């Protein structure tokens, strides 16, 4: 018993030390004042602007398309549903380099849709649109997965009650289901955003790397590693801080939203019995 508990504690210590050490080491290697100074570097600023722009656009697309798609998958059962869910989750386990090559094979100039896109005057590789698509591809499963779980957890009786009270399907979705699922949606959304911000492999293959245009923060870190190590470290430190923020948000947001909505809705339901 004692030996077993010791084993558990030892395993936890090893895990925490191993996972936290590299993150701590980034901050130990360069003093904070110097980190801030390095972030003023033109390259770092350009990369952050590209990263934020593309991540925000990609995120809007992911949430905009992912939310209704996940609602359908969570509330209807149909033939091939699990196949569809698996397909949507595939990018989660796909190596990023494979994702990049796949995007090129589909949307590249000599890719599957290359001629059609060209006819529309669209050449995607090497543009910010390519960065956005790469981010959407790798990040959307994180959101869709969380959204399906969040919608599935909504009490069907509450939905049914809204419908019998005369609310249409769309109105029920907007006024009842969305608020109830908001916590889970918010958590999935923040994790997907963080994954998109860190996207590297698919982006470097599909969009290339050009400062100010397609070079995102992770690509700039890779580029600066040899001759501008300080810039690479500073960008890394900033991404660590952003990741911590996202992680905290994804844990706090659901709880906060629940407490926010539980008070008025409980008051509303308590009047009925």
């Amino acid at each position, binding site marked *: 018993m004692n030996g077993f508990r010791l084993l558990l504690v030892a395993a936890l210590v090893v895990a925490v030390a191993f996972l936290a050490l590299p993150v701590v080491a980034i901050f130990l290697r360069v003093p904070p004042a110097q980190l801030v100074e390095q972030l003023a570097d033109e390259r770092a600023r350009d990369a952050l602007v590209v990263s934020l722009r593309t991540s925000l656009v990609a995120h809007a697309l992911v949430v905009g398309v992912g939310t209704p798609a996940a609602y359908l998958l969570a509330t209807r059962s149909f033939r091939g549903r699990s196949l569809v869910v698996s397909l949507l989750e595939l990018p989660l386990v796909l190596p990023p380099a494979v994702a990049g090559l796949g995007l090129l094979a589909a949307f*590249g100039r000599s890719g599957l849709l290359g001629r059609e896109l060209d006819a529309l005057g669209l050449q995607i590789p090497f543009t910010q649109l390519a960065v956005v698509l790469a981010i959407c591809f790798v990040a959307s499963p994180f959101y869709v997965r969380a959204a399906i779980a969040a919608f599935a957890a909504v009490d069907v009786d509450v939905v049914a009650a809204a419908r019998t009270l005369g609310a249409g399907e769309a109105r029920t979705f907007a006024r009842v289901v969305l608020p109830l699922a908001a916590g889970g949606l918010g958590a999935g959304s923040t994790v997907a955003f963080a994954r998109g911000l860190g996207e590297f492999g698919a982006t470097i293959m599909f969009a*290339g790397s050009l400062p100010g245009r*397609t070079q995102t923060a992770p690509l700039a870190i890779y580029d600066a*590693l040899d001759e501008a190590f300080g810039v690479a470290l500073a960008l890394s430190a900033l991404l660590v801080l952003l990741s911590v923020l996202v992680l905290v948000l994804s844990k706090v947001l659901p709880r906060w939203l629940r407490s926010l909505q539980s008070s008025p809705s409980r008051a509303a339901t308590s009047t009925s019995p």
Partner: protein
Amino acid sequence: MTRRVTAVLATAAALAGCGGDGGREGRHLEVFAASSLRGVLEELEPAARFTYGGSDDLAAQIRDGAPADVFLSAAAAPLERLRRDGLVGAPRAFASNRLVLVVPPGRRDGPRDVAALARPGLKLVLGAPGVPVGDYARAALARARVDVAANVVSLEQDAKGVLGKVALGEADAGIVYATDARAARDEVRTLAIPERLQPRIRYLAAPVERGDTEAAAAFLDRLTGEGGATALRAAGFVGLRG
């Protein structure tokens, strides 16, 4: 990312080599060489372990303590920086290379020469600043007085990145070493760049001070001798000019 992984792998390999027989006897010569030398020099020292990468990446690894005995760089700058800090011995030049233009195969309206790289809308891929193949390309373009700034769509970390994007047909042109283009001749079409535009490309080798300098010296003798010259010529490298 890859450079860190190779550094770790190289360290692990060296540790394994040392641990095995506890001495220098069983230790392999560790050669850190520019990517463009891949597959060219293995025969010179079959027992050696070759780690390939961008010259500046390898220099950064050596600075970080990676266990190299010899460093073969595709440009002078990465080696000179190490030399200034006393990390490597005296460098010796051992080969030269040429730049070529690569274009996707089977495209009729593609560029035919360096001047055509300035054509509006052309998509050009080069090595990033600090990456020798990129710096050499910029030197050649400057000599040709061709302004391609608006056409560069990506700055890659090595020649492989440039070749890949051209081979896939996504970029219209790239500039790489003749030896890289030769190795990828099934994937890309190669166009010569005139002699007057060629920058002076020198491959330099130096023993790493912390490494086995004796074994390194023996390897460098073979590299700069007849054996090295033959292997380099066979791969398309050219002799040293002036």
